[in-house]
Structures are given as structure tokens and as C-alpha cells.
């Protein structure tokens, strides 16, 4: 039984300590949460993501006060009510739209940083897996949110993506109708995607963010050289005042001070986009109200889904769906497909170096082709890039098992 001092003043330090262990919490989560010193600004992307998620959450709460999840009203509630009648509604909407796009850019940078430095290995597998889970959840969040303005692209992207669940040759039309709640996207469809976007998926995201932080606490953050640090020893050195010799820094305030600076620079760019260059995140096609009788000439997802869309597109329906399913799960398997014992930056890992850059460039090519109309040379390049994508993942266990131990 814990001991409670009856004379402690309510909410005094002692009183809180006995009930919440605030000193221990602060030590474990902040002042003695050790981070390697040998890192660069890419290590701040986690905090940048958290901050962007915060912006999305806050702007979303304001938008939610005026948005109408009704097929007759949704378009004008977004484009008229929020944009011209609500004070600063346009600002919240542009923050939300730009944030949704930029958050994926940062996620991809964060992911490729992890791949480059091998931060998914040797005790860090769960960090990678929970991160991938977040990627999937953010994708669901982005897609469901894209339905809400009920523009042409909302409607037709909703149609195309839910159609995938018929599973091609299996013709599971019943499943598609069950998901839509109707034969075509309509009121039931909009309502359930609204629920997913504002409740279920954000709830799951918040939960998995906590898990993601949790998975990080014991294996600690990786560093620029993949060096295995004895954190306890380094921490003792730091606490003894030898901050220069120690290989670690405390999360608060040393690591945080750098994070905050990186966030400051990031926000300058972010708000430049919000005020002067938001069109990239808000497709013109979606400013036409949903029209079930008129299919847009080009249907394409937002940029961050283009690579997986292009993995699906060059093939016949069934093979395409299998390819698509492969692309969705393959990144989860990265810690197990990489057979090398080395935790080091890709530049020091022989063939893996080429594998890393080939994957990055291949995914950028897939992204380009995913938006272009699938005609002539574009579909050939798309097909080659899609096949390369599979080839790279098949090659990964082979080249990494041959890698020399550093």
C-alpha cells in the first residue's frame, strides 16, 4: 500500500508525486529519456509529424462545426459556408487541405530515413511495424476525408476505390454494396465515411501514435552511424557533467530545442503553402459538385497514393489487384526481408545502397505515371516501373543475405 502524507497540501508537488509519480514520469519520458547525439535534422521528422497531426486535428475540429454530411449540402457547406461565411473558415480549410498533403510528404521522408539508416532492425522492428500501421491509418484517414466535400473527385474516387473490393474475378459485388450501403456512393456512403474520418480512424491513429512512441522507448532512437550505444553508461557520463564526451543527450531540453527549431523552419514553409500555394493540395476537379452522370476525363488519387495506384493499373484486373495487395503489405515485411545483420547507413552497406536509391527513384517514377493518362509510352514506363518494384522486393533478401558483416 502506497504511503500518502495526510498533511500534504492538495496539488502540491508532494501530493502529486504520491498520486501520479510526476517526478518519475518526467525523468523517464523527458529529462532522462536519452537520445543519441549523433543525429541530423531528419530525426526531428517525428515531432514535425506530431505537430502536423496537431494542426490537422485542430483545423478539423473547427471545420467539423460547420460541415454537413449530407449529399445535398456537403459541397456548399465546404465551399460556401466555410469558405465565405465562417470567420477564418478559409484558413482552417486550407490548413487542413495542405496539412493532409504535407503530412504524407513528411511520412515518406520519415520512412525513407528509417530505411536508409536501418532503423527497423535489431530491437526496432516494432517501431517500424507500428509506424507502418500509422501509414495505413493515415491513408484511410486521407481517403475518407477526401470523400467529404462531395465533389466530382470525391465521388468518382470513392466509386473506383470501393470497386476494388469486388476482388476482380471473384465479383464480390455484394461486398461492395455492403461497404457503400447502396449500389453507388450516396447518402449512406457519405455518412459512414464521415464517421470514419472524424471518429474511428482518428481514435485509432491517436492510439497507435502512443504505441509508436512506446515501441521507441526501450530500443532507443537509432543514430547516423547505426552505432550500438550503451545508453546507461553514456547517461552516467552525461549526468556527471561530461556532456561533451557523452554520446547521448536528454530528450528535454537538448533534443527538443533542436526539434523546435526544425519545426519553426517547417512552419514557415507550411504556412507559405497555406497562404500562397495551396492549389497543389486541392484538386480543381473536386470543385465541381459530384455528378453521378458525368465521369471526369481523368480519375486519379491524391499524389501520395499514386505509386500504389500505378502498381495496380498496368495489369489485368486480377493480377493488378494481387499486385496492389502486395504493394500494400510489403513494407510491413521490411525488417524480416532485410537479412543483413548490419545496422548502418545504406551508403556503407554494399548492394543495399543501390537498392535504396533504386526503390526511391522507382517509386517516384510510379508516382509520375500514376497521374498521367495510361497511354502509349506512359503505360510502358508504368509497367516497367511496377515490375521493377516487385523485382526490388524479391531481390532484397538475396542481396542483404550476401552482405558482409561490418
Amino acid at each position, binding site marked *: 500500500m502506497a504511503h500518502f502524507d495526510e498533511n500534504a497540501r492538495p496539488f502540491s508537488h508532494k501530493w502529486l508525486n504520491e498520486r501520479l509519480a510526476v517526478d518519475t514520469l518526467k525523468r523517464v519520458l523527458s529529462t532522462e529519456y536519452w537520445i543519441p547525439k549523433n543525429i541530423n535534422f531528419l530525426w526531428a521528422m517525428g515531432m514535425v509529424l506530431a505537430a502536423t497531426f496537431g494542426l490537422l486535428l485542430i483545423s478539423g475540429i473547427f471545420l467539423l462545426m460547420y460541415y454537413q454530411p449530407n449529399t445535398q449540402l456537403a459541397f*456548399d457547406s465546404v465551399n460556401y459556408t466555410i469558405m465565405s461565411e465562417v470567420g477564418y473558415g*478559409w484558413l482552417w480549410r486550407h490548413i487542413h487541405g495542405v496539412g493532409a498533403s504535407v503530412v504524407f510528404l513528411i511520412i515518406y521522408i520519415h520512412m525513407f530515413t528509417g530505411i536508409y539508416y536501418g532503423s527497423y532492425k535489431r530491437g526496432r522492428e516494432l517501431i517500424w511495424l507500428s509506424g507502418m500501421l500509422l501509414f495505413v491509418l493515415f491513408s484511410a484517414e486521407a481517403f475518407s476525408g477526401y470523400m467529404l466535400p462531395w465533389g466530382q473527385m470525391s465521388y468518382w474516387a470513392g466509386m473506383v476505390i470501393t470497386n476494388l473490393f469486388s476482388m476482380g474475378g471473384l465479383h464480390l459485388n455484394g461486398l461492395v454494396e455492403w461497404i457503400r450501403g447502396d449500389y453507388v456512393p450516396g447518402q449512406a456512403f457519405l455518412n459512414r465515411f464521415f464517421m470514419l474520418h472524424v471518429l474511428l480512424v482518428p481514435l485509432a491513429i491517436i492510439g497507435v501514435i502512443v504505441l509508436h512512441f512506446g515501441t521507441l522507448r526501450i530500443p532507443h532512437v537509432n543514430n547516423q552511424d547505426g552505432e550500438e550505444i550503451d545508453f546507461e553508461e553514456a547517461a552516467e557520463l552525461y549526468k556527471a557533467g561530461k556532456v561533451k564526451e557523452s554520446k547521448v543527450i536528454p530528450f528535454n531540453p537538448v533534443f527538443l530545442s533542436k526539434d*523546435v527549431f526544425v519545426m519553426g523552419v517547417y512552419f514557415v514553409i507550411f504556412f507559405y503553402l497555406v497562404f500562397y500555394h495551396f492549389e497543389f493540395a486541392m484538386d480543381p476537379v473536386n470543385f465541381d459538385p459530384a455528378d453521378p452522370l458525368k465521369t471526369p476525363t481523368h480519375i486519379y488519387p491524391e499524389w501520395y497514393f499514386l505509386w500504389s495506384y500505378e502498381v495496380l493499373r498496368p495489369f489485368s484486373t486480377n493480377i493488378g489487384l494481387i499486385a496492389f495487395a502486395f504493394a500494400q503489405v510489403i513494407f510491413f515485411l521490411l525488417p524480416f526481408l532485410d537479412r543483413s545483420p548490419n545496422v548502418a547507413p545504406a551508403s556503407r552497406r554494399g548492394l543495399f545502397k543501390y537498392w535504396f536509391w533504386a526503390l526511391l527513384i522507382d517509386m517516384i517514377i510510379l508516382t509520375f505515371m500514376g497521374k498521367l493518362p495510361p497511354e502509349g509510352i506512359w503505360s510502358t514506363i508504368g509497367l516497367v516501373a511496377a515490375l521493377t518494384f516487385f523485382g526490388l522486393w524479391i531481390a532484397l533478401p538475396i542481396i542483404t543475405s550476401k552482405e558482409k558483416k561490418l
Partner: protein
Amino acid sequence: MKELKILGVVVVFTLILYWGVEPFAHSQMHKHVEGHDFKYPDLPALKVKGNAENGKALVAACVGCHSIKSQGMAAPMDAVTSAQTYGVNPPDLSNMGALLDEKFFAHFLLDPAKVTKSKHFAMPPSAGSEQDAADIVAYFKSIAPKEISPKEAYETACGRCHANRYDHWTQIGEVPKTKSNIKTGVDLDALAFKKKVGIYENKLADYMGKLPPDLSIIIRARSEQFLETFVEDPQSQLPGTAMPRVGLTKEGYEKVKDYLEKTGDPSKPKREELGPWVIGYFILFAFLAFLWKKSIWKGHH
């Protein structure tokens, strides 16, 4: 230094990505149409000079269908009856001289269907000779107001086919302010107006083949280049479209665009006002954060 190199790599890949999915993709997806600055080079220059006095006499024929409100000449029929007769309500002519290109206007009077490139244009040829046409144009220029508001430009050039619900504009005019019955909530006047708009829209859709779209937010749904070349010559962007070439001058088009911007992108002035403050705030924030970081990291390297 190493960090700047890494930053450089991230920035380069990000910019390549942006280039591919935005400017490059859009350049491949949309056909490029060259504009002519609203000069209508397909129409020959006028060989004669118009005389407004003579034009005034000829205009007596116009008011059989059109109103010229600025000169106290009312429309012979209301908008709905006009639509039932012609398919669309003929425009008020008060501002035509200020909005239309002179050359276009004169050729239009000689052969409306050909000049508008619209398959079934309701208006018949309305000038006997190039001289008559030039005289009529001169008359309309003489009565044209010096300053036309963006909204008037829209009403004259677009407003009888295209509603703009964000500005409460219907093809038959402003939505009137009405009151509902306090006991029942029924607003008979509003319902009556809605019915009139409905009859008009049905007739208009028959005439045009489909109902021309509401333009409330078209400014964000189409690129600037598309709108400009489309209004200048609808066939260039959408071959076969029922939309007629309306013959605006460059200035006339700019007015229409101003109006569309006001209804479709009303936050533009507010963005431009607030933007520098927010960005300035974060520059200051980043600078202070940098100083804080420097002081905290002192002795760490």
C-alpha cells in the same frame, strides 16, 4: 555541412516529385490552347465607320425582343415568357457597347450563328449591311456607361444561362427577399420564384441541350488559362459545346473574372493580408528557437 547536404537531397527529391505530379502531369493531361487576347483574328476588320445617329434609328428593331433599360426601354416580355418563346431570355443591351469587341459585335449582327459558333443561336441576322451593323455598334458604344461593375458584366455576358448560387443569382435575376408564414413556415413567394426558375431552367436545358453549369466556384474548378481561352472561343476547348462565343473584350473578360473570383474565391484578399503576418511570426519563432538551441547545445560538441 553534412546536414545541409542531406537537406539538399531531400529538397531536390521533393521538388522533382512536385514537378512530376503537378506542372508536368497537368501539361500532359490538358490540351494546350493558344489564346488570341480576345482579338478574334478569324473575323475580318470592318471596312466602314459607324454612325451613332443612324444606329439609333436602326435599334428600334432590337427592342422588339431586347430591353435597353439605361434608355428607359423595357423588355417586351418577362424572362420566363421569353425563355418559353426563344429558349433563353434575350439580354438587356444597355452595357453591350462597353463589353463586346467592336469587330465581333458588328459581324455578330450580320450573322449571329456563324460568329458565335453556336449551332442553334436564337437570334436571326439583324443588320442588312456592314454599314448598318457598324452604325448599331456605334450607337451602343455611345450609350455605354463609362464604368461597369464586375457583377453587371457577369449578368450581361453569362447570367442568363449560368446561375451563381453563392451570389444568390439565378438565370432570371436575384433571388428576392421573401418572408415565410410564421405559423406554418411556408414561404409561398419563395416557392413561386423557385417555380419560375424551374420553368426557365427546363426551357434553357431544352435549348442548350443541357443545363449550363452554375459558375459559383468555377474559378477554382478550372485553370486560369482554360477559362480565358474557353470564354474567348468555347469550341477551342470543348468542340461541339452549345456555349456560344460571346465576344467579350479583354477588359470585359477581366471584369467577368473579377466577379467569378469574388464569388468563388472570396478569401483571396484576406489571405494576402494575413499571410505575411503568419509567416513573419514563424520566421521570428524559428530564429528564437535557433538561439535557444544554440544556448542549450553549448558545450555538447
